[in-house]
């Protein structure tokens, strides 16, 4: 006794939406990388070179084959500054703001 196709319609719809979600996220990532595939398995060297690429081109994932860097690159630098918190990037509660104010001197009581 074959299953009537009406019984499988919900599964078709679910599968279609999984596909739309996955390909949609993939498309957005591809677009956000400047129409390039993601980088992965990055080590410290890759990260360092990607930071250097950003300083040279001004855009994320930008590439340039110029032989000589522009003048401002000689003194350009990008430094990531951070402070220790056991709950980093988890929430932005008053406790963390007080910790931030205690550490950096910039009190934020908003």
């Amino acid at each position, binding site marked *: 006794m074959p299953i009537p196709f009406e019984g499988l319609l919900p599964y078709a719809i679910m599968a279609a939406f999984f596909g739309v979600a996955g390909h949609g996220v993939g498309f957005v990532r591809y677009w956000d990388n400047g129409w*390039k*595939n*993601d*980088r*992965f*398995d990055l080590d410290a060297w*890759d990260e360092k*070179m*990607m930071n*250097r*690429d950003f300083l*040279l*081109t001004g855009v994320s*994932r*930008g*590439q*340039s*084959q*110029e*032989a*000589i*860097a*522009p003048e*401002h*690159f*000689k*003194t*350009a*630098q990008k430094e990531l500054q951070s402070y220790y918190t056991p709950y980093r990037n988890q929430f932005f509660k008053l406790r963390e703001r007080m910790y931030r104010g205690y550490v950096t001197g910039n009190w934020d009581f908003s």
Partner: protein
Amino acid sequence: MGNLVNIAGAGLYAGLRKSLHQPYDSNKINSEFDWEKFSIYEGNTNYTLERHKVNSSDPITFISVARYISKMAPLDNVDISRFEWENVDKNLLPSNIPEVDEVGATSAPLLSASYFIGAKCKPYNDDFMMCKSENNGGTLDCLKEGRRVTRCAVNVLQDLNKYCFDEFKLHYECLEQNNHRLGHCRYSEEVFNKCVFANLKLEKKIPGVAEQIQLNKSPIFQGGSNDKKITEAFLLKKEESKEA
């Protein structure tokens, strides 16, 4: 003149604020507000305000003296309202260290050109590494050798851009699409290597291996890239442009 008016206003405001915070008490004011001195930092310039209370019975009457002190040297461009600035280091290199142009190529073109830079600049690179090993790292002692290395790499990149611009671009764009894996871009690499050998007489040679993998026509794993298709289209276009 505008600055002076501003400063006088700021001084009045500060005096008013202070008097609001502390209710009027003639003894206290006489003891604390007789003479006051504080600084205002405005428009790249540091001003010092001195306030004297002339009539001790009237707390509102002040004489504001604005005095230009000096440009603040280390904070020359600091402005409280700025939201963008050029990231320029004001502490330049000492004059006994000559300028050198930095390498402007980014990661993918550098990886693509790396074997040719190695082939051309081997003596300079070896010299630099020897200097480093002899001088315990040689951060300050090997600047001269380092400048030679930089200049040589810039020269190679200039030559590549001059003679093999399109092939260079073809290869490093393939690398950029394939997570900088050389094994996924052999077709474009072959085109690029041929162009470089024809024009610059530089040959890619991987040091210290039994087999030069880029010469293998049928490697076991070639990756899933569309490098072959793109390279064929590139060659076709190039032939067409030659005929035309």
